């Protein structure tokens, strides 16, 4: 495939991402996307990896409550909240984005990572749920990794409003909701970049490139 070469051409070869795997989420597609970019993947549920690994991916499938219970049970909630709070390279996907909030309508009483403000609610109105398929993404103003295009979604819940201090991209499905938030080297997407074709692979590539450069100290932290 051309993407491996593309990844190598971008200088992504030799990188390794650590995918947080608590057994709740399905990670085959995430692994496959990174491998197509020429990047090695490693699964881990160890708190020291969540704290110190250079590049961390937080996938999320399943329910808010079950996912948080799994993260807490493995001692991952604290280290993840800390690295995201500090803007260190973290890619959160789908439910992974919602886990950044303090709570969700999906699992009343369950406590999230609490690193961003905002409510996670179910889609209302007449639209079919789950929100399933390719939807238009409107990138945040001020230039970010997310470019205009269409991304693949499979979600029933969403973050209503972007938190202050973060670059917020949006989509619409009966109402406007948060497509992605970015701050420092943290990129959290409601859509699935790993299933969003070339557009998604390019986005992952940009997150890797900026994160890796910063990790090597070639770019001053902003």
């Amino acid at each position, binding site marked *: 495939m051309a993407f491996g070469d593309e990844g190598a051409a971008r200088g992504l070869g030799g990188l390794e991402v650590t995918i947080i795997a608590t057994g709740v989420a399905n990670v085959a*597609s995430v692994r*496959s996307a990174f491998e197509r970019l020429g990047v090695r993947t490693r699964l881990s549920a160890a708190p020291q990896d969540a704290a110190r690994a250079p590049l961390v991916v937080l996938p999320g499938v399943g329910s808010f409550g079950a996912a948080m219970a799994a993260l807490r049970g493995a001692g991952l909630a604290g280290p993840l909240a800390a690295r995201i709070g500090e803007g260190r390279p973290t890619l959160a996907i789908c439910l992974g984005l919602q886990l950044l909030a303090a709570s969700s309508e999906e699992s009343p009483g369950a406590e999230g990572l609490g690193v961003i403000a905002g409510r996670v609610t179910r889609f209302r109105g007449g639209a*079919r749920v789950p*929100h399933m*398929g*390719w939807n238009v993404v409107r990138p945040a103003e001020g230039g970010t990794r997310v470019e205009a*295009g269409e991304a693949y979604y499979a979600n029933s819940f969403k973050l209503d409003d972007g938190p202050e201090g973060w670059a917020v991209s949006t989509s619409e499905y009966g109402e406007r909701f948060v497509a992605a938030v970015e701050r420092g080297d943290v990129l959290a997407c409601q859509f699935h970049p790993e299933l*969003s074709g*070339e557009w998604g692979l390019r986005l992952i590539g940009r997150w890797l490139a900026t994160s890796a450069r910063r990790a090597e100290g070639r770019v001053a932290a902003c």
Partner: protein
Amino acid sequence: MLTTRIIPCLDVRGGRVVKGVRFAGLRDAGDPAELAAEYERQGADELVMLDVSATLEERRTAAETVARLRAVLSVPLTVGGGVGGVGDAARLLEAGADKVGVNSAAVRDPELVARLSERFGAQCVVVAIDAARRAEGGWRVLVRSGSEATELDATGWARRCGELGAGEVLLTSWDRDGTRAGYDLELLRAVSGAVRVPVIASGGAAHAAHMSEAIEAGADAVLAASIFHDGQETVGSIKRALAEHGVRVRLREGGGRERKEQRR
């Protein structure tokens, strides 16, 4: 705004793509991974792989085929056929499926839909319904690849599946499957009106006008097999025609890569 999905379907048996008419008379239609990669290049929004193995021996190869598809695909993959329980679903997801389709086993044990939904999330669970017209009106559910009729009403069963936690209904008209006579629009209207989850129309597509009708009848996505395998249409040609009909589809970004790869 959400776009309408165009979904090529690969019926796979013993590691090869096959296709028949009304679930019978299967003929070889190519290598699954090659076809999958080609369909993604053409702009497929998602792929469905149905394992139509007749023997245990053939079925054992299904997970390998899923892994081969995953390695070449950057769009979602639904895998169905022969899913009897949570363990089967877990194996397919681990091999690289993003969603699992369940059919006969759910009819036997409807609670299976709830168990799959609890374990993997509703967005992972596609209930496939094979529906055949009844002489007296309405549609009955068929199981075991259409070989066995039940007394279940297709509309009621679809509604029940939504309530049990299905995230999507893949609705195949047995009467139209492989016939190229167009989707069963009455069936689509009845089922899409009965459920709140997305409905994928399947069975009978010959061209974009059929798909446009299906979307108007309430389909959220349209699935086809024969017309793509035979090269009669490409996903791109279907999407361009649909866009002219005013249907919102995801069009390739200028189609640059498609052309480049053809030249190579």
